[in-house]
């Protein structure tokens, strides 16, 4: 009798969804990671030229998803020579001691429509911060994209220390936007 039950279980086991989600790789040419601080309340657009996104994700089963972002902080560019020089220093990004930033999320949930939430941890300038990132997942004939935006407080990470910490001349809130073009890893 037991052997008979086992025989029926086998095909059912094969029908269960696999815990292995689809792996995706970033297309650097079609992807952008921007950060937008404000100067005297004026937005100043900047980018990180070098970063990578690796994701394991199926829109139908987001729970199995994993999102990993690594950023070369030293590749930051605000398109202003004097400013680019300043942000490399200890008071700001401190390139020498903290050249890398990372975001890891293993908790991905569906929110509504094409919107998902990646709950994970951001590592930036030596600070470890839990962070939830909302993103839109869009697959079409043109390809697959992962995009969204969020606002971070630079004070959380000690970016802009001393008299810069409380000064609102460089706003405390920094907008981050991302548009990631992905292709399947076969």
């Amino acid at each position: 009798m037991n052997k008979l039950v086992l025989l029926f279980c086998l095909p059912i086991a094969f029908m269960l969804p696999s815990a292995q989600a689809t792996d995706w790789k970033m297309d650097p040419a079609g992807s952008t990671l921007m950060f937008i601080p404000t100067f005297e309340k004026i937005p100043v657009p900047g980018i990180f030229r070098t970063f990578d996104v690796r994701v394991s994700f199926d829109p139908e089963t987001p729970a199995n998803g994993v999102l990993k972002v690594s950023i070369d902080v030293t590749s930051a560019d605000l398109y202003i020579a004097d400013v680019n020089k300043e942000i490399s220093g200890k008071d700001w990004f401190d390139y020498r001691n903290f050249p890398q930033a990372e975001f890891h999320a293993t908790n991905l949930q569906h929110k509504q429509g094409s919107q998902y939430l990646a709950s994970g941890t951001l590592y930036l300038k030596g600070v470890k911060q839990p962070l939830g990132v909302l993103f839109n997942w869009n697959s079409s004939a043109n390809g697959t994209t992962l995009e969204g935006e969020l606002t971070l407080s630079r004070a959380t990470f000690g970016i802009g220390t001393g008299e810069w910490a409380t000064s609102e001349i460089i706003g405390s809130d920094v907008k981050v936007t991302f548009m990631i073009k992905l292709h399947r890893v076969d």
Partner: protein
Amino acid sequence: MLRNTVYCWGTLAKLLHWGMAALILAQIGLGLIAASWRVSPLKLELFFWHKSIGMLIVLFVLIRLLWRACNPTPVLPEGTPGWERIAARTSHLLLYLLMLALPLTGWIVNSASNIPFRIFWLIPLPAIVAPDDLTADLFALVHRGLFVVITVILTVHIGAALWHHFVKRNNVLVRMLPGRRSPHE
């Protein structure tokens, strides 16, 4: 009276003259302090004021030039020697040119440095040149050079006004002072 006569400056001319004198002195102070201050929120704030007032000066200079064109210009006292007349016209012409050239070169520095700016935090100032480090450095040098020139000309201008008053004992300075109404010689 509002308008000039051939003997005396009108109220608006006096207002523009002294108003701009105050702004220009403020600019010299702001520029010197901002440029020499260490990198800090204060330095950035001072430059924002400096640039805003600079653009305000451009507006006032244009109004002033327009008003000057629509008004008689008071004549120098009778008997004024030729060289004095030339010196007066030249220095005043140079001052007008500098009052425009200084903000203009400053505007070029700001544009070439790609620094975001809104006049008095309100009106975005469009870039007049494309971002370029070499242009920014060059015009920063020109801007500073022009500052030296205007300081020299202003010293001559103020010195001459005082000389007219205390040495030559004529009404050249007096007729630019606020409150004086009589158009007499």
